[in-house]
């Protein structure tokens, strides 16, 4: 089985891009399954179901979504094996721009969109910088100049990655994407013991543990302060 991890800011077009790629896998009789990770709510699983692929969703709820991903990916891979998939795709939203769910030696794809503004590549951390493949969407609604500047900035923060423009509506570029995220020769049976490409952000302060009151005396653990400077 192949495993590919998709990640990207909310509403960047991950699901549309994956669905278009799935359509081209189906034409080639490659069995694809999807596990969608989200935070509070998603109905994307219905879209995958409609496309006729096995799908599971995991909502992290009160937990940090990427931590939730890391503690579930092993079981998710086992599920994919049971379903006899040729390709298992996981999809997760990068919520704080700091996390990245990529695993070393497993293909990682970041989906970002032209509409998010040309400073976005600078703002997104390992989710973009550590990806093997960057898919840029919504290129049909911004000017050619903005497309070029955006792509060149993505290239500056991640020169190693292949950059691909995909149109989530017409599917232009989706076939090409599909050839890059599935490799017949590759076969993984488990991700046990594999490593995340980048450590997740440190946390564990009193608010992680359910504290709701504001004030210095309620703050324990890993706390950081903004430097506002002295004003008298």
């Amino acid at each position, binding site marked *: 089985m192949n495993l590919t991890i998709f990640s990207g800011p909310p509403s960047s077009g991950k699901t549309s891009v994956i669905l278009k790629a799935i359509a081209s896998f189906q034409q080639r009789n490659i069995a694809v399954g999807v596990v969608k990770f989200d935070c509070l709510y998603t109905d994307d699983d219905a879209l995958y179901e409609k496309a006729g692929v096995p799908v599971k969703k995991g909502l992290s709820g009160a937990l940090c979504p990427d931590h939730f991903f890391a503690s579930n990916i092993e079981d998710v891979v086992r599920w994919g094996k049971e379903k006899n998939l040729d390709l298992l795709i996981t999809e997760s939203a990068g919520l704080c721009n*700091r996390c990245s769910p990529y695993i070393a030696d497993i293909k990682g794809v970041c989906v970002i969109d032209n509409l998010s503004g*040309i400073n976005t590549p600078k703002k997104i*951390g390992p989710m973009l910088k550590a990806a093997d493949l960057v898919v840029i969407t919504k290129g049909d609604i911004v000017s050619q*100049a903005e497309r070029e500047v955006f792509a060149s900035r993505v290239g500056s923060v991640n020169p190693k990655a292949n950059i691909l423009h995909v149109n989530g509506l017409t599917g*232009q570029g989706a076939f090409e994407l599909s050839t890059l995220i599935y490799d017949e020769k590759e076969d993984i049976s488990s991700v046990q013991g594999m490593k995340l490409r980048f450590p997740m952000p440190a946390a564990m302060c009193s608010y992680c543990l359910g504290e709701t009151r504001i004030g210095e005396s309620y703050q324990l653990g890993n706390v950081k302060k903004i430097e506002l400077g002295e004003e008298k």
Partner: protein
Amino acid sequence: MKNLTLSQLLIKYPFITDYFEQNNLEIAGYENGTFEEYLRHFTREQIEDKALDIERLSSDLWIFIEQMESFLGIEKENEVRSLTILPGKDKYGNPEQFEKLTILPSQIISIVGPTGSGKSRLLADIEWTANADTPTGRSILINDQEPDRKWRYSSNNKLVAQLSQNMNFVMDLSVKEFIEMHAQSRMISNPEEVANKIIEAANKLAGENFTIDTPITSLSGGQSRALMIADTAILSTSPIVLIDEIENAGIDRQKALELLVSEEKIVLMATHDPLLALIADKRIVIKNGGIHAVLETSQEEKNLLNDFDKIDSVMRNARQKLRAGEILKKDELF
């Protein structure tokens, strides 16, 4: 290269400031050390806080330099002197109805066919430089040869630039800042000169003039379209331009095509407007996902173009009169 100090690197490869800037690396004060030494100064805490991947940052810089060098060095080598499409199959497996279609710079080819007939697929095949490895089985040749794979992945060398109807400017910049930003991403040495050239060209296309200080978001529909076309013609690296219908509002479409052609672009234009479709020397007819025919624009059709032009000017004239509050009279219009 790795033993050079940052200031030596900056002199040799001035474009690396872009790498430092996009990666939020503040190198001031570290110019006299190597990049490795600079990276080593970060404390554990800073590394965590800024989410730095030291190893990756260090290896990426050398890759970035290599890529930029080749991007700057091979512009000439990238010259596209011809684009050839070799036939594949339509979605029912029938072979496409043409032998070989070669398009040269400054040629305009129109593409016709109903929505969903496979226009995007054709474009994707060109963009991907298909090598009988896409669903249509088409192959694309550049300069009569199997193309270099760099066209597929590189962020700086894209084969196809696109101009579609839905395109908008999303940035909040003045026209000048906008063009300069685009020029900067292409490492152009004379951004101001280029900006002036683009604005001059754009103003020739648009009905109403705008200036270098106009915010791009306040341009009219016709003005933005004109700026996009002029910018793509003059500043885009892509040798092939795909146009998806230029609407007939506030812009001289014929001049727009002339501008693209004068910049040696290969122009592919999806349109059903006879005024545009017949300007092209050839048109590709798409049906059922495949190329159904490649038609040469006949002399009769070229002659028709003149008639259409007359009809169009009648409409334009009527529109102008309406706008001016006049009453339309048949004998004044025809």
